[in-house]
């Protein structure tokens, strides 16, 4: 069960990291155009939603783990993987665009 707790904390740290990065992107993108700050704010909202989801999932997973069910959640991994790729890609494009202007 310690493994379970450690994994929940890893999810929470990841959610907090995405909120921090989202804030920084919003700040940077706003210099280029105000509406682009929405990209960073979206990441902050996603991070907050992930934080809450993680807390709920931690609570709900105790019983299935005791029954011996697999805790693998491919959809969550895919969503977080893809949104992180999208976020880092968008940040790269914004950085290149603001370097050229």
């Amino acid at each position, binding site marked *: 069960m310690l493994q379970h707790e450690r994994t929940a904390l890893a999810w929470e740290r990841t959610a907090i990291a995405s909120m921090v990065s989202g804030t920084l992107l919003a700040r940077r993108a706003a210099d280029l155009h105000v509406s682009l700050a929405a990209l960073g704010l979206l990441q902050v909202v996603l991070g907050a939603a992930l934080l809450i989801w993680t807390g709920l999932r931690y609570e709900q997973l105790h019983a299935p783990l005791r029954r011996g069910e697999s805790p693998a959640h*491919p959809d969550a991994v895919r969503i977080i993987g893809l949104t*992180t790729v999208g976020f880092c890609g968008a940040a790269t494009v914004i950085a290149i665009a603001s370097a050229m202007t």
Partner: protein
Amino acid sequence: MTSTPDHEQNAYRQGAPTPTPRPLERWFPRDPTTVGDDPDYRFTLANERTFLAWVRTALALSAGGLLALTVLDDVRGEEFLGIALLAISFLTAATAYRRWALNERAMRLNTPLPSSRLPLLMAIGVAVVSLVAALIAALN
């Protein structure tokens, strides 16, 4: 007579889809939980944490890049530093799901875990960027 390696026969028996060389699946493998048997839950959780550690690394690199662009605004060469860190963060993020899926698949089929050059490449990449950052700081 054709001879197949043991682990491939094993995968076939357990209903693993035959590998298709589509480019999308190279970077976005299909759901690994449809093949093989559930491993010890601690292994699945350890794999999940490793995936999250890669995601956080990507996010930390992007935060570093964005901070370089924002805080070092009056330093010459800050664009290069920021864009380099952001590009590394993008590449790191792009490999995270793939690594998770390949590890999970290997654990479920009881085959050896795939090895990765990513930690080495990441170390070299960040070291090079740091050296460039030191150079930029010295020249300003």
